[in-house]
């Protein structure tokens, strides 16, 4: 019965639909006027055209934009302000907020607001939500200005919110992609954040989930500070290659579950600094400069069933020691030379994480210059054979099997084959030609 009622709403509202025709400049009055004149629950169809901002929505209406409908803030602080509950904005392009302040969309003290397929460009903040509940931000595109990140605002800024859903947004060229400031019950799903300072920034945030996001080429992928109760799963966190770059940094937070994430080519993939009661499980750490970094004390932390593959350094433990198993199973390490005589899938000897290089590094940080250089790699290898260096950490139950590339299909690269074949064949021809030439001359 209830669902029937909800179905009726759009049918009823369609009867009261008004159409706004946009023209340059003059259209401003039309759009704002149309909103002012609309009744609660009306659906306004915004025709193609450029409308002058700022626009203030102060009653529960639906704003459905046709392709090419643009609200241009022309440097005003907030281009679109929403101060009413049950507002729905769809398909609109919003651009040009002020430099250094303001936002594309400000949602203030509202609830049940939805922004869908909205394109926000050339703004300081993208969407600024202040004291909102049950806000849905879906399939939006947010692109900031092409200036240094310190001068940009955040893509989506949630201040003192509850029940916000951020799904399938594409955010780039902002300071922080998604910023949770005292935000509760937040769902962040399938977003893509690139070219930001921090892709997702949690600050005093509580209870939420980040799932299947792609965070690439930012300074930090995920920055979690003073937050608790988060589940972070199935995210792809890649190419945070700045020297300050962390795939994810968990600082002074608790009850965080990191599972099934893929960390690829980050400067430091995952750093734990005063993280309490955290689970790090089933993640893939591939090709990072440093996979896991632990600083200060990280009590009650469980690191298990992760895969460490092709990282230059698997772990750097600078504070209190942490364990790499839960008493039954550990992690998969490609550096582990295993024996498994009882065939239980767990190595018979513990895997000790140690490296001469790490110890040198702590004494002289500039030794980093010789990361994986021929001489130091040689020293590291030799040293692992002959001495019992003090281990940084120990995995008592290292796993010996790895199921890689579950979701990835092997992609044949014909360019590679072409390159290889040209080199191979031409060098063989050269050798053959040179040798025959000599032979003929000698005869």
């Amino acid at each position, binding site marked *: 019965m209830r669902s029937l009622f909800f179905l009726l709403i759009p049918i009823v509202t369609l009867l009261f639909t008004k159409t706004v025709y946009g023209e340059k400049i003059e259209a401003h009055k039309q759009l704002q006027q149309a909103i002012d004149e609309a009744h609660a629950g009306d659906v306004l169809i915004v025709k193609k055209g450029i409308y002058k901002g700022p626009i203030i929505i102060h009653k529960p209406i639906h704003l459905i934009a046709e392709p090419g409908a643009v609200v241009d803030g022309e440097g005003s602080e907030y281009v679109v302000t929403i101060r009413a509950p049950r507002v729905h904005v769809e398909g609109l392009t919003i651009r040009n907020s002020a430099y250094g302040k303001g936002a594309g969309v400000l949602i203030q003290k509202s609830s049940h607001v939805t922004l869908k397929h909205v394109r926000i460009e050339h703004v300081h903040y993208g969407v600024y939500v202040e004291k909102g509940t049950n806000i849905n931000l879906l399939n939006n595109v947010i692109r900031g200005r092409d200036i240094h990140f310190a001068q940009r605002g955040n893509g989506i800024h949630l201040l003192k919110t509850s029940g916000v859903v951020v799904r399938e947004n594409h955010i780039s060229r902002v300071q922080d992609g998604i910023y949770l400031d005292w935000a509760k019950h937040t769902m962040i799903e399938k977003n893509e954040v690139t070219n930001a300072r921090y892709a997702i920034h949690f600050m005093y945030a509580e209870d939420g989930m980040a799932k299947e996001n792609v965070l690439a080429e930012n300074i930090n992928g995920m920055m979690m500070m003073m937050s608790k109760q988060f589940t972070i799963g199935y995210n792809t966190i890649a190419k945070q290659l700045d020297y300050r*770059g962390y795939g994810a940094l968990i600082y002074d937070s608790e009850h965080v579950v990191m599972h099934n994430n893929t960390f690829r080519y980050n400067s430091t993939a995952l750093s734990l600094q005063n993280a309490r009661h955290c689970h790090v499980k089933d993640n893939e750490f591939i090709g990072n400069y440093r996979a896991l970094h632990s600083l200060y004390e990280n009590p009650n932390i469980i690191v298990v069933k992760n895969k460490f593959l092709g990282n230059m350094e698997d772990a750097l433990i600078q504070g209190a020691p942490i364990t790499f198993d839960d008493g039954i199973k550990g992690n998969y390490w490609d550096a582990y030379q295993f024996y498994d005589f009882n065939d239980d899938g767990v190595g018979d000897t513990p895997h000790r994480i140690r490296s001469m290089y790490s110890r040198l590094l702590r004494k002289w940080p500039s030794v980093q210059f010789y990361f*994986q250089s021929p*001489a130091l*790699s040689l020293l590291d290898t030799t040293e692992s054979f002959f001495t019992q260096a003090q281990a940084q950490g120990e995995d008592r139950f290292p796993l010996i099997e790895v199921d890689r590339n579950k979701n990835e299909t092997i992609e044949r*690269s014909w360019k590679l084959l072409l390159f290889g074949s040209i080199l*191979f064949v031409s060098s063989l021809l050269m050798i053959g030609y040179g040798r025959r*030439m000599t032979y003929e001359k000698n005869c």
Partner: protein
Amino acid sequence: MNTAIKYQWMMMIRSKWLITFAVLFAVLSSTVIASSGHEASGVFTRSTAALLNLSLLLVPLVALLAGSLFIAGEKEDGRLSLILTYPVSTHSLTLGLYVGSCISLWTVVALGYGSASIALFATGGTWSTFVFLSFVFTIVLTSIFLAIALFVGLVASNRLQALGISLFIWAFSVLFYEFIVLFLLSVVPKQWTIFLFALSIILNPVELVRVWTVAALKSSALFGPQLYEWSKWAESASGQLTFIAIACIWIIVPLFLVNVWMKRGKRYA
């Protein structure tokens, strides 16, 4: 000059020793890249480092040995004195010898990288700028060490001496050099660090190529926060140009010395 190139190229590629090395290098590089997983992407990773390290270890050795032993042998057998009596200018003779040996060794490197790429393809790896860049930088490294090798071969009085000097230069530049710099690092004041590193790159072609590769892959975050400013510079166009300039100096200076030596030899011949 063409005759000199052809002569040198023929003599070198005829060497069974060089062919053996070509096969060895091809097998090793294929094994390294095929067993390293498919992490050879556009950035510097452990598999990238493994292949680069293989080149940094082996290529200087073979370039030094092949180059110096060949010239020393020519000298010992009196063939060089014979050549010097021909009506060819020392310039073209020097260049001919150099280019000829370069082509032979480039062939060897190409064989190695060709088979490594095919091995990577067969194991499902993808194309990346690294494979190409690494090949180019190995070529640069070969060229630098061949120039040095020619000089060593000329200076040495016989094959055995050439072998000794070559092995010493190889061990010094590839193995001991970094430890010496590390030792100096622990002795000198902290603010000299960057200067010391910069100097160490200029003074050793192996270091030059190692750092250059990392910088060209835009992965110099690897060098850590202490060298941040320097890394940014190394990745920039002016940094890359500086690398090219140093590489050129490393090729030109030994060749110039070879030329001077040959001129002197010609006078006595």
